[in-house]
Every structure is written in C-alpha cells, then in structure tokens.
C-alpha cells in the first residue's frame, strides 16, 4: 500500500451532482421560456403579419432569370444573341387534373410522348410550389393562338415569353463558340439550382461552356402577391437580375467565313492565330452543324442523323481531331537539330531516295522514291531539306537526335499537351517518349520509331490547334502564347486557368532566321528548275503580294507495304493521305499564323496550301509592304520550267 488511501466522498459527490442537476434544470426552464417567448412573438405579436402572408394573400417569390451575355467577334459582329421565344408552361397547383390538361393540350397542339415524359420529369424536379414548369419551347404563332384562345379552359397553363440563345451565324460558328443546351437531369444534379431558377439552358460546349459562369448573369427575384389559387395579383418589390458578361472573341467572322468556304465542303479544319496575342482568329471544323437546333431541343431523328453521320459533324476536328502532322513537323525537328548542335546549317547529306538504319534491311523512303531507284534530292542541307521537304535528311536527323531530345524540344512548342486557355474540349495530342512507349505499349523505344517521328509520322499526333500554336511560336521567334478565344469583356474575368508557358528561348536568332527563311522558300522559291523549287511554289507562290512562310505536310492514313508505291487510284477516298499546310505572314512582322488540314485531301502543297493562301489573302487584304521590304526571293530567274506535280503522285510526305 504505497499510495495514500483516498476514499471517494460519496455524499459530497451526490451533493455536487444535485446542485448541478438543479441548476441544469433551472437553465432548462429558462431556455424553454426562451422558446415560448419566441413562439409568443411569432404567433401572437406578429400573428397578423404572418396570417396575411399565409392566409389571404400569399406572398410568392418568383425568380427573374438573367439575360445571358452576348458574344461578339473582334469586329463587333454578333455571334451569340438572345431572342424571345414563347414557352408553354404549367403551374401544378393551379391545374385541377394534370392528365386531363395534358390530354387537352395534346389535342390542341399535339405533344409527343417524349415531350410529355420529360415534362413530368421536370415537374418532379421542381424547386418551389407555384413554380411554372416549361412544357414546350419555341411555340409557333399558330400554337400560341390555339392555346391562347382556349386559355379559359386551361387554368394553370400559360404562354410565357422567355429569351433564348440564338446563333445568327448558325453553322459557321458552331465549333468556334460552342453552344448552350437544355439543362438535363444530369446537369440539374450538379448546378446551383438557385442560380439557374428560371433558366432552361446552360453552356455545354466550347466558349459557352468555359465562360458559363460569367455569361449566365445573376438571377433576380420579385415578390408577388397571389390569390388563393396562385394567380399573381400584384408585384410587391423586385431585385432585378443582372445580365451576364458580354464577351468579345478574337475570332474574325469574315475570316472564319473565308476559311470555311475555302475548304469547299471537304472534311477538315482551319485554325488561325494572332501570334502577338495567341488570340484565335479562326477556328473552322468542317462539316459543321447548326447549334440553334440544340437550343430548342433537337428531335431524335435529326440528332441521330448528326450523330451517326460518317462525316461526324458534331466532332470538332480543329481541337479534338488528332492527326499525324506529316512534314509540317520538319521545321520543328530542324530547330531541335540546330539548338542541340546535332546539325549545322552547312551540314549536308546525299539523298539517294531512301534511308536505312545500320544492320537493318528496312527501307525508309523519300516521297519521290521510285522502284527504279532514281528518286532522292541529291545533296541536301538543312535549308533544302525544308523547302524540298526531304525525308531522308530528317530520317537521319531524327535518329541522331534520339527520342529524348526530340521530346524535350518539341514539347516546348506545345505538342503533347493542351495549351488552350478557354477551349475545354481541346485534346492533348500525343508527343511520344521513351516512357510513354514503355508504359502504354510495354515495349522499348526502337530507333525505327525515331525515324518516322522525323517526318511527323508514326506515333506522334497533333490537333490543328496545336500545330497552329506551334507555328505561331516560330512566327514569334520563340515567344510562346497560350491560344485563347476571349479578347475582352465588359466585366473583369480572372483568367485563373492561364497557363504560363515557357518561351522557346534557347534557339539563336540565326537559327530562327534560317528556318523561317527556309519556310519562306517553300512558298517563294520558284523558277529554279525541276526538283529545286519550294514544294508549294507551283500551287500558290507565283503572285503572293506579301512574304509568307509555310510548310506542307502529307500524312499517310494507311500503311504502305515495303517496296510498294502509294497509288491514289487504288485507294478509297477515306484512305487517301491527309493534306496539311501551315503558314504565317507577313514574315517580317507576322500578324497571322495558321494550320490547314484537309482530311484525305491528298498532297499538302496542292490541296492544303491554296486554302491557307485564301485565308491569308483575306486577312492581309490591306497589307502594305514596308518601305522596300524584302522582295520575294527567286523571282528574277527567267526559267519557264513548269513544275507541275513534284513527284509521281504529286504528294510530298
């Protein structure tokens, strides 16, 4: 017994407990009296007020939906507007027999089972009593008339005018701006139901989706006095709604139109960027669709036709389409070669038309390779490798660089990532790396993989937006700007998602100059004789009033067996090569950079370049060459050699 014996003092404890219990009970009585006092205040003192509110005239709160912000192009052309639309609504409390009312309406204006079912779903989701629930949107004048005439038979049924989204330019802007859609059940679970009370639509795609929060505005409400049956007697007070932010986009509707027309109905995409800002001047994906269809609620047949079309018009090729870039990648590989010291500007190779890895029998062909063996470009330095789009030069350069340095240098241009600020659907593309191949294919990186990357084929995938962004970096000589749609707004929009992208700053001015000059030669070097002109010169280079830099690309869609030739006639239209052309102009102070893609279009110079030229011509229509600006090169040579197709099939890889 080392511890002192401490007996519990039982009577003392129970005494303390009793004191506390009595005190607690006293407190309990006080709090009960507080509750009673509160009830007395509500039920006796303020009874008249609440009785009025509740009994004779019910005060009802109605939401006043905000007006969605407008969207303009850079010159003030309206892209997204709001127009009045008449909606048939039903207020449950005022309807005596819901099924009978629906039957009557059906007889009057005709309702589909779909419409009735989705109405019932919306009715079940209703937030507050006496809230009107939309039954049918976009009533025609006839429908309005029929319902109005019979209104006395249909208590609770109203025709309400609401503002709904309208896209005056229709198909033209669908992929650039996105669209709003009806709020469906899934959306209803995730949105703030208060903010959307009275609003039936929300931005679902593109700019409309990205800036949804700003475009929506702030809901207002008004208190109205209603009679016992819920009919509004008078409005008491109102807090007006605040309209959403108006947005001005970088997009140029005229340019968009020209680019869209230039595609001439072919499947493809055009993305043009203002290099100085990263602003997207045009974002065309063809075919397109009319976004207005979705605003009213598209019927199942029309939707199925759009969804199941082999041309996938709902698919935004400009930002979601991922393609092999083909030879448009060559300037970037060239820059990687220069900055790493893998090649010098003077370094040259002898191109006999094909390339082989040591200890391998596989033949990597140049685009002008022939079975007879007289293809190739002869002695090729970096400049010629670009303007003649020489594959063999880049095969060997890519192998020397190795995938690690290719990956490191190309990712600086935004390949393999989505750098777009406000295009939520834009895809990442794919810039392969050793690690990527090990994790996704469980295979090591083979030198042969690098060979293909050198000419933009193999595992590499880019979106037209990515390619345009990367070309803008060249135009900027290294300044990297994330592409964006939004130019300005009447309210401050924090660009929280702005990616601060590192500039490509390791490349020397001389190297930039060399590559840009070479890209200029792609277009302007002409009249030099067979096999010496820029690949695009014959198609667009003869009369350009400004100096542009460009690069064609032609990417295979189907594999070609060893020793076989690509023969267009043997292939169906959908197996033909994808035509690419990237360009920027004017070279001395670029104001526009772009990427053109024609799916299964054939040769990039032949089919891609003319589209690029039309877009540039329109955008630079007021172009004044600066005093004695660089004269287009290769002009004086008087040779009249006409270089038609620069190869057996007019296709440059």
């Amino acid at each position, binding site marked *: 017994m080392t511890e002192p*014996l*401490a*007996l*519990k003092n*039982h009577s*003392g*404890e*129970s005494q*303390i*407990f*009793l004191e*506390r*219990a*009595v005190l*607690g*009970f006293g407190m*309990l*009585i006080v*709090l*009960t009296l*507080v*509750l*009673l006092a*509160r*009830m*007395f205040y*509500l*039920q*006796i003192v*303020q*009874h008249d*007020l*609440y*009785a009025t*509110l*509740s*009994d004779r005239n*019910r005060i009802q*709160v109605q*939401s006043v939906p905000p007006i969605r912000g407008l969207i303009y192009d850079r010159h003030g052309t309206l892209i997204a507007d709001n127009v009045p639309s008449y909606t048939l609504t039903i207020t449950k*409390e005022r309807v005596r027999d819901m099924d009978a009312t629906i039957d009557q309406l059906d007889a009057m204006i005709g309702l589909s089972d779909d419409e009735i079912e989705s109405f019932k779903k919306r009715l079940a989701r209703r*937030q*507050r*009593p006496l809230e009107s629930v939309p039954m049918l949107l976009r009533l025609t004048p006839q429908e309005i008339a029929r319902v109005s005439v019979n209104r006395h038979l249909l208590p609770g049924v109203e025709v309400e005018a609401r503002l709904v989204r309208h896209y005056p330019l229709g198909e033209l802007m669908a992929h650039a701006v996105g669209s709003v859609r009806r709020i469906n059940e899934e959306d209803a679970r995730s949105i703030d*139901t*208060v903010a959307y*009370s009275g609003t039936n639509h929300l931005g679902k795609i593109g700019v409309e989706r990205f800036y949804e929060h700003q475009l929506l505005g702030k*809901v207002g*409400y008004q*208190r109205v006095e209603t009679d016992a049956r819920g009919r509004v007697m008078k409005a008491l007070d109102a807090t007006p709604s605040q309209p959403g932010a108006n947005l001005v986009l970088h997009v140029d509707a005229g340019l968009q139109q020209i680019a869209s027309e230039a595609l001439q109905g072919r499947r493809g995409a055009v993305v043009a960027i203002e290099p100085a800002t990263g602003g997207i001047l045009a974002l065309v994906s063809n075919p397109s669709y009319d976004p207005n269809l979705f605003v009213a609620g598209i019927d199942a047949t029309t939707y199925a036709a759009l969804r199941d079309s082999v041309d996938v018009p709902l698919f935004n090729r400009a930002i979601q389409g991922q393609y092999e870039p083909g030879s448009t990648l060559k300037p970037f590989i060239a820059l990687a070669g220069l900055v790493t010291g893998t090649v010098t500007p003077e370094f040259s190779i002898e191109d006999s038309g094909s390339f082989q890895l040591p200890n391998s029998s596989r033949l990597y062909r140049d685009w002008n390779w022939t079975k007879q063996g007289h293809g190739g470009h002869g002695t090729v330095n970096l400049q010629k490798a670009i303007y003649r789009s020489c594959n063999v030069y880049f095969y060997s350069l890519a192998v020397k660089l190795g995938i690690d340095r290719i990956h490191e240098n190309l990712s600086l241009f935004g390949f393999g990532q989505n750098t777009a600020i406000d295009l939520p659907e834009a895809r990442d593309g794919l810039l392969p790396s050793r690690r990527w191949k090990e994790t996704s294919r469980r295979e090591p990186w083979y030198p042969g993989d690098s060979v293909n990357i050198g000419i933009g084929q193999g595992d590499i995938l880019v979106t037209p937006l990515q390619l345009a962004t990367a070309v803008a970096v060249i135009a900027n000589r290294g300044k990297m700007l994330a592409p964006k749609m939004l130019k300005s707004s009447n309210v401050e929009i924090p660009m929280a998602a702005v990616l601060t992208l590192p500039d490509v700053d390791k490349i020397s001015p001389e190297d930039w100059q060399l590559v840009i000059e070479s890209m200029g030669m792609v277009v302007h070097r002409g009249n030099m004789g067979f096999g010496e002109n820029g690949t695009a010169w014959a198609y667009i280079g003869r009369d350009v009033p400004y100096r542009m830099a460009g690069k064609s690309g032609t990417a295979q869609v189907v594999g070609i067996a060893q020793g076989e030739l690509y023969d267009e006639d043997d292939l169906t239209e959908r197996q033909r090569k994808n035509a690419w052309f990237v360009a920027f102009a004017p070279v001395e102070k670029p104001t526009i950079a772009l990427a053109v893609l024609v799916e299964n279009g054939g040769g990039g110079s032949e089919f891609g370049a003319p589209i690029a030229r039309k877009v540039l011509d329109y955008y630079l229509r007021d172009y004044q060459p600066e005093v004695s600006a660089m004269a287009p090169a290769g002009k004086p040579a008087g040779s009249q050699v006409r270089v038609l197709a620069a190869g057996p099939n007019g296709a440059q890889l």
Partner: protein
Amino acid sequence: MSQDFVRRMPYGSSSLQRKSMIGEKLHLDVALILLLVLICSFGLVVLYSAVGRETAPLMSQLVKIGMATLAMLVMAQIAPVFYLRTAPWLYLLGLVMLVLVLFFGYEVNGSARWLRVPGVFTFQPAEIMKLMVPMILAWYFHDRHLPPRPKHLFWACVMIAIPVVLIGVQPDLGTALLIGAAGLLVILLAGISWRYVFAALGLGLMSLPALWFVMRDYQRQRVLTLLNPESDPLGSGWNIIQSKTAIGSGGLFGKGIFQGTQSHLDFLPESQTDFIIAVLAEEWGLIGVVVLLTLYTLLTARGVVMAAQAQDTFGRLLTGSITFTFFVYVFVNIGMVSGILPVVGVPLPLVSYGGTSILTLFAGFGIMMSIHTHRRITL
C-alpha cells in the same frame, strides 16, 4: 483500484431490493412511460396531418415506435453493472465503426454517414455515439475523485473529441456538435469547477471567428441565412421564411387540425421531419406548442429526479446527461425552425418522422429505467 469498497460490495441480494411496485418489478418507470406515450401520441396526430392524412407513413412510424419500445424494455431489464462493464468496449466498437464509415461509408447528399451491409442493414454509427459518449464518460468518472482533476478532465475531453472529430469530417457538423454537447454535459454534472467552465466559454467565444474560416460554404450560408433570411429568399432562406410564416399564422389557437395551409400547399419543406413543429404550431397554435413543451419539460423533470435518486456516480451521470441531451435536441430543433438558431439537421424528439432518432432516444430511456429500477435501497 480497491479504495472504493462501498460501491464494490456485491450488487446486493434480492432480499435487499425494494420491489413494492409493479413497475419496479418489471424494471419500468411508470411516469416516464406515461409521458412517452402522451408525447408520441400527440406526435402521431401531428405527423398524420403533415403527411397529408395518409395511413401508410403513419403505420410505418407506429411500427418504428413499437420496435423502439421493445428495445427500451429489453435495455431496462439489463442490470446497470452490465453497461458499466461493457462501456469501454462499446465505445471502442463505436469508434471502429466511425473509422470504417470514413473509408467505406455510404454517401447520401455528399456526406458519408452510413455503414451498409448490403441486404442486411444500414445504420449511422454516429447515432450510437449519442449514447456511447455519455456512457464512456460516466464510466471514466465513476471511480475517480469528483470534482474531476485537470488530468482527468483532459482525458475526458479526448474521449469526447475523438468521435466528434470523426463525425465532423463526414461531414455532419450538427451531429458532431450535439455529441460534443452530450459529453460536456457529463463533465458539467460531474462537478467541474466553474472556473474551467467560464474559461472554456471565453475561449470558445474568441475562437468563433476562426470557426468561420473552417466552415464549409453551405454551413456559412446557414449562419448568414439565420441572420438575414430575406437575403436569399429563393434558396436557403426559403425554409426559414416558410416555417416562420407557418408558425406565426397559427396564432393562439391554430388553424385547426388538418387545416394548415402552409404545410398542405407544399410551402413548408421537410414538414414531416425536421420542420414538423411548424405544422404543429400552425394547426394547434400557441396552445399546442405550450402543451408539447410542457410534456417535454415534465419528461426532463422526471429524468432529473431519476438521476438525483441514482445511487452511484455512473448512474447519476448517465441518467442526468441523457435527460439534458434530450432537452438539447428539443431546444435546437425548435430554435432552428423558429429562426433563432442556424439550420442543423436535428429532428424533433419523438415527433419527427423517422426511426433512427426514436430508437436512440428509447434506448437511452431504457438505460435510465434500468439504472432507476435496479437500486438496492430507497433513499
């Protein structure tokens, strides 16, 4: 451990026990049961009106009350010494389940509060803690010196804090606070020095601004709504505006049973569960409210008497804290519906629709009756 030989005496032979009244023989407390019957009956009438005079939910509630009564009767038969001995194990079991909820919890409305064995049962471990926290503290204090010393206070606070934090992160701030309150009530009843009480109160007041920053958006919204419900009449203010209108329009005598317009026109949200007092106030008026509050007060008064008559620290503290916690529920619920407290999800005891809360309450009353009717000598 052997100091307390008086209480450690064998738990009496049956000859020493007083078994004069029939209620005591069956280990029941007649007064308590009578009050429960009155409150539940009144509650069922109000509920019948709130559900729009449909019988199915009424029957379902009756079945739940029946099952809860059964649980109460069983728990009253078990001797208090059993609760005393098993308290730490039950508490640990409860903690284990709270941890399980964090990992395997079944989510409803964004917070995981339920444990579910598919096809077998679904329940809220937090609910068990409403009884286990007072019980573990009563167990902890029963053979220690009272008033408690700082060291013991510290460990008591730890025992409260663990479940409170586990429930708070579910997140279920309302239940966490109520369980914390139940535990603190035990400490108060154990005779904690007022110095500590006031010091804690002062600290609590000072930390209120800090609390604001750790609250989630919807919790802040509830506080703001309390201060000015008109600021958001479409959203969170709606409930309070409507419940105040329902209560106020009831007046002194009410609109008459089944005549409430607020509840029947669907203006009043949650009218069968947390906001049922508004239905009562609208239809029965202030008179009905006074009757219900009187019944509640009598019930708690009986509980305080039972606590005062308990013969050991464990019985006293447990009975006392169950009683006062019951009142906390009443106060928080009515306070929230009438707009003097923020909206936290607390049902009105014995009246709101739903089985979980009734089961816990009846189990608590069962324990109280067990403690009361297993006494050896009359004081």
